[in-house]
Structure formats: C-alpha cells, structure tokens
C-alpha cells in the first residue's frame, strides 16, 4: 500500500495548487516550495475575493490558505464560501496555515473544517510531509469523496463500509464521513449508532457533536442537552455546539435561553451570517425587537459582496421594523426608517418586482401607524401593480397577505392564501410559509400535522402531562404562529399547568401572547366559546397572581 517517492512526484506533477496569502514574500516562499515538490501549475491570490474568483475558473486540487489575511475575509470564511458555492471538491485538499495553534480559532460548523492545519513557522520538509500524507489519504479515499461530490451518498456510505472492513488507519476517517452522509440522508438512527460506537471508545469532539445532532433529530432532547452541556463546559470552540444547544432550548419552548446562547456564540464570532439570521429570527419570536433589528442590520452588512446578498435581506429588516411598530407607542416615527431601508435597497436593485414588494411592505408599515386613509390608497395602488406584475414571487404575495391583514382586509387575505396554497401545493417551503400566516392549516402536510399534533396533545392531557403539552404546542406554534387550534390548546395546557403546579409570570405572559393571537375571533366562530372560557380562566389566574405578589 505504501506509495513510493516516484509515484508521489507523479501525483504532484498533475496537481493544480492555489496559494492564498496577503504577504507577497510568503506567497513566493510557499510557491517555491511546492514547485520543488514537482507541481507545475501554481496560482496565487492575495485575498478572498481573488481566491474565490480563481476557484470558480479552476477546480484546484490543493489550496493552501493563510488564516489571517488582514482586514479581508479570513481563510475560514473563504473555505465556507467555497463549500457553500460548491467550488471546492471533497477530493481536493484545503490546508489552513496559521500563526497560532488551532485552538485559538473559533470555527463554526464541523463540515466547514479544513482538511488540515499547518502552524507557522514550517520548513519545506514539513510542508512536504504534510502534503504527502494528505495526498495519499485523498487518493485512498478518492472513490468515497468522488461519490459525495456527485451527491451519491448511498454509494459513499457503502464504500465507507467496505473501507472500514479493511481496519486500516483510515477506519476513523471513514466512520466520520459515513456518519455525516447518513445524517444528510436523514438516517438519524443509524448515524447515532455510528457516533455512539466512536464515543464509547474515545471522547472525540466530532463524534460527540454528531451524536448530539442525531439525538436532536430523533427528538431525544434531554439526552442531547446533557451532551452539549458537557461540550460547552469543556470549553469547545466549535460554535456549532452553541447552535445546537440553542436549537434544543428553542424546541423545548424556551426561546429566551436560545437567544442568549446565540448571542454568546455571536460574541465569539460576530461574522457568521447564518447564525445572525438564526438570532434575528429567534429575537423576533421573543419580541426582542432591538436585538432583532440589530441582527438584521448586521446581516445586510455581512451580506455585502457575498453569496447571501439579496433584496430579501433588506425586506427582512423592513419587516422587523414593521412588526415592531405594533408595539411602539409612536409608530409613525419609524416610517422614515422603513423608507431609508428601501431607499438604500433601490439603489442596488432596480427591477419592478423588487420595487413593488417594497411598496407592499411599506403599505403595511403605514397601516401600522393608524393612517388608514393613506394605507388604503397604497393598497389600491399595489393591488393594481400586482395584477400587471410578471410572475410575482411567492414571497411578494405573502407580504401582500400581511398587508391585507393589517389593513382590515381579512377576507382578501384569506382568499389570497387559499389561492397560493393551491398554486404552491407541491412546494414545501412556500406551503409552510402559507400555513404560518394562516389561522388554519391550508396545505395537505399542514393539515395532517395539525391532526397529529391534536392527537398527541390529547394523549398528554389525558396523562396530565401538562408541561410536555406546553412544549409540544409551543414548538408547533413556531411553524404556525397564527393557528387558532394550536393557540387555544397552548392556552389550555398553560391554564391546567398553572392550576395544578402554581402560577408563574412567564407562563402568564405566554398565555397572554396566545390569547392576543386569538383576539380577532368573533362570536360566530366555532372556537369562540372555548376561547371565552379559557380567557376568563386566564384573567382569574392573573388577578390572583397579582394580589399574591403585592401582599
């Protein structure tokens, strides 16, 4: 199996190399080294933008990137962007060169780790040994990585199993790849088995994280919480650990803890756009508008010149401000902020549909100020333009639904949602967004989910497991915040829990949010009587709680 020097030389001759470093001296020095190994094509880049451009033109076999590239994107961000854009094959080598040891760098997701870290200072001989090893490894696992590049995960899994049966030094590497492929294929039970097998032998971080993520996917939240808690205590610098912990808190219905965890992770690594996005969303759920707006603004900044740049980022900021206006004592003062967002955006994006969508959200904002006259005119205007618009996006139409709702056109909103549900029947993402806005599920999946949830909830009520019911309905409400049945059930679970276990202000607040969601119910609605009864219960609990706390 051993590969001879001559064979290695042959490999090097056929390889293409990209060196990313901001120091010309360093670039030259590394270039001379790899040319000495026999590489014929060596390109260099002095910053992330240049590197990514070059990678788009040529799929390099070996990339050597300095971590610290001055004020530019660092080596880790380049790696993430290359992976995100599919510009880096799994059969290629990405080596990060660092001035410090790896432990000083926080990194995000495990799958965005480089193949290797090389610490400065290094000599030519050391670089050669390292590259030799990586090339031999990539060669040995070529078929597996190639299958992953071709998105044939089943094949990759089968090949890993074959290789594991060799019991050679690549055994663990194969387990790791296999675990991540199984996870991607949503075979969480099998993935969990693999990770458990590894962890039982060694306390390895990647295996622990994989195990925890599988547990979350399998809804074993308590076990996962213990596991990630240990990882955080051990000083893990893999920020995915915090993301997972936040996910667990969120799923358990504790969005406030989730927000705190994400805020902490962002403090450690403020430039991760996806985490900022998660934080913005969760802050909105928590009605923590200040944080939400801060994150939304940061996202726009981070999105500049990146793959994530789109009008949607600006719309999100405007939507957040608009949502905040509902709770603001002087909402009219925020109109100029919304206008400012769109003014900046329109300088960048000049197509009619983008302008139209901005005006739809703008009309919503005006409606929130209570200026019904002006919002009515605006709604009429955008209505006309929608009729003439060329293939308006689902998102645009959903914004229109919101604007209809806040301008008192509830029937129009309902009709539009029904229409959209039909058009986007087969689009899971849009269907979910439709159900999110709707007060009753419209998509087939949403309807089925509602039935399942109801049954699960009924069982929990029979068993008097009220706190479990609270977490069940809270979770579901993340996806369907306006759903009447869910809000009623959550109220019921909260009232029961408080009656049996005692009243707390957090539970009262959550009950009040659910009640607020149902405040538009009128007497002719079939759910009105239940709503009325639960509302009375809630009021009673609140007033006794208040007298108790003033005693």
């Amino acid at each position, binding site marked *: 199996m051993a590969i001879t020097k001559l064979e290695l030389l042959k490999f090097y001759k056929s390889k293409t190399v990209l060196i990313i470093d901001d120091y010309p001296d360093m670039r030259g020095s590394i270039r001379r080294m790899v040319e000495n190994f026999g590489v014929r094509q060596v390109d260099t880049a002095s910053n992330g933008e240049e590197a990514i451009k070059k990678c788009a033109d040529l799929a390099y076999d070996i990339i050597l990137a300095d971590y610290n590239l001055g004020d530019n994107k660092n080596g880790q961000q380049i790696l993430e962007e290359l992976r995100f854009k599919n510009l880096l094959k799994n059969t290629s080598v990405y080596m990060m060169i660092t001035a410090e040891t790896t432990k000083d760098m926080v990194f995000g997701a495990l799958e965005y780790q480089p193949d290797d870290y090389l610490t400065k*200072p290094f000599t*030519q001989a050391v670089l050669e040994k390292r590259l030799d090893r990586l090339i031999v490894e990539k060669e040995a696992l070529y078929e597996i990585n190639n299958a992953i590049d071709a998105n044939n995960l089943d094949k990759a899994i089968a090949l890993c199993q074959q290789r594991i049966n060799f019991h050679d*030094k690549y055994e*663990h*590497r194969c387990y790791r790849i296999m675990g991540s492929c199984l996870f991607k294929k949503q075979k969480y039970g099998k993935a969990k088995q693999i990770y458990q097998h590894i962890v039982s032998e060694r306390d390895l971080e990647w295996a622990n994280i994989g195990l925890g993520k599988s547990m979350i996917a399998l809804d074993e939240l308590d076990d996962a919480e213990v596991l990630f808690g240990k990882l955080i205590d051990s000083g893990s610098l893999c920020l995915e650990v915090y993301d997972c912990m936040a996910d667990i808190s969120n799923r358990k219905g504790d969005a406030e803890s989730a927000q705190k965890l994400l805020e902490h992770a962002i403090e450690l690594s403020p430039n991760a756009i996806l985490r900022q996005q998660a934080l913005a969303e969760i802050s909105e759920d928590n009605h923590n508008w200040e944080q939400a707006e801060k994150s939304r603004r940061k996202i726009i900044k981070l999105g500049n010149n990146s793959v994530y740049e789109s009008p949607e980022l600006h719309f999100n900021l405007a939507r957040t401000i608009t949502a905040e206006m509902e709770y603001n004592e002087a909402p009219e003062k925020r109109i100029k902020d919304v206008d400012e967002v769109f003014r900046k955006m329109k300088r960048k994006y000049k197509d009619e549909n983008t302008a139209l969508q901005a005006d739809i959200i703008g009309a919503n904002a005006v409606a929130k100020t209570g200026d019904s006259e002006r919002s009515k005119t605006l709604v009429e205007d955008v209505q006309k333009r929608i009729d003439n618009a060329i293939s308006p996006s689902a998102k645009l139409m959903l914004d229109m639904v919101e604007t209809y709702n806040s301008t008192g056109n509830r029937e129009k909103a309902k009709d539009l949602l029904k229409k959209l549900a039909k058009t986007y029947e087969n689009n899971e993402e849009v269907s979910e967004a439709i159900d999110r806005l709707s007060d009753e599920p419209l998509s087939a999946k949403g309807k089925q989910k509602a039935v399942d949830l109801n049954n699960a909830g009924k069982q929990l009520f029979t068993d008097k497991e009220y706190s479990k019911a609270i977490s069940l309905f809270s979770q579901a409400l993340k996806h369907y915040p306006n759903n009447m049945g869910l809000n009623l059930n959550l109220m019921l679970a909260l009232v029961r829990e408080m009656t049996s276990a005692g009243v707390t202000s957090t539970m009262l607040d959550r009950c009040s949010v659910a009640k607020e969601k149902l405040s538009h119910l009128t007497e002719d609605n079939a759910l009105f009587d239940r709503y009325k009864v639960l509302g009375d219960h809630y009021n009673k609990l609140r007033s006794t709680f208040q007298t108790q706390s003033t005693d």
Partner: protein
Amino acid sequence: MSTSDPNNAGTIDFSMLLASSVHDIKNSLGMLLTSLDEVIDISVEDRPEQRKNYSILRGEASRINNALIYLLGLYRLQSDQLNINLSEIYVADFLEEQVASQQLLFDINAIDVTVECDDNLTGFFDENLIAGVINNILVNGAKYTRDSIVIRGWEQNQTLQISISDNGEGYPQELLDKLSNSGRGIDFTSGSTNLGLFFSQEIAALHRCRGEQGCISLTNSELGGCFTLSLP
C-alpha cells in the same frame, strides 16, 4: 481576569502582556528560522567550515522557539486556557514530520535519524502540544547524541508509546532521580533548566482516557539515553 475593579484601572495586566509579546516574538522567530534555513541551504556548500557555526545558530534558534512555546503554554495552563484538542493522528507520519522539521539540524551535525513505526498505527492526542514535546527532545538529542537517534512508536495495552533514544552519554543521574522521585512533577524552581521536561510532563498529564493519565519517563542504557512518552 476581570479588570472592572476601579483600583486596577490603568495598570497593565502583566500576564496578558507576556502572552502577547511571546506571540510576537514567536512570529519573528518563525521568519528568522525560515530565512536561516535558506541561508544555510545556499552557503553551506561553498563554506563547509562554517558548518559548526550554522549548527549552533540553528539549534539555538529552535531552542528559543521551543522555550517560547512552553512559556505561552504554561501561561495558558495557569490561566486555564490550555485545552487539549484531541484528534486522531497517524503516528508514523507525525513522527516523520517532527524529524523533517529539524532535518537541517541533523544534517549539519551528521546525525542519522530513523523512525520505526507501523504505518497503520494511529493515536489520539493534541498534535501541536505533543509536537512541541517531541521537538524539544529531538533538539536536545541533536546536541548530546554521538551520531544517531532512533524514534519508535508502538501500542502497548491500548496506550500509545513513543520513545526517542540516542547513543550519547545518557541523561544525568540527577535528572533521572528528580523525575522518578517527584511523583507529581518536576520541581523546576531548583534553578536548573528543566523547563522542557516540566512542560512535557504537564502536557502528557493533560491527556486522559478511561481514568488513565499520560506520563513521561527517562532511562539510560549502555547505548545512551532514552525518553519515553506514554499516552492513554
């Protein structure tokens, strides 16, 4: 670690200062080592009589680098920032790489270095920290051995063993006694320069698995000195 104490405002956190200066010096030293290697590469053929001087230069530069790594490491150890980063390492490749990093030093001193290790042997340890330990022993070995160093890696009772033996005079008796008597660690306050061994001991002990702890040992035979590192 908090600096919010008003009485402390304005004073400098000395340990932080130390850590960041060490960091800077280490980077400069890195450049120095690289340039030195290039210079030696060019001129040693023309002026072979300079060999000995280069050897000293290179060896001492490596020592400074290692000492700084310890200093930074010990600072972290003290301030609880030193976490080990366990990963699976191919032992044979790892050992060969450590030899490669000091190849020039061995070449100019005409020392024959061999690595004996099964190609399929893997171990679990912190690559950077253990590399520091091995490097320290190698640089020392280059100074004290006669003409050869043998590095072996093997597994014994689920414990990874790495030994580095030379054919020099062996370790001084005083050092052997200290290491075997002190039990928990080496007392490096006694003035002698055992910083490297103290550090190695601490690093080894940070590696734990199934209730076992890593350790180092020193032995002498008629052939020379032998350093052994055991990692569970």
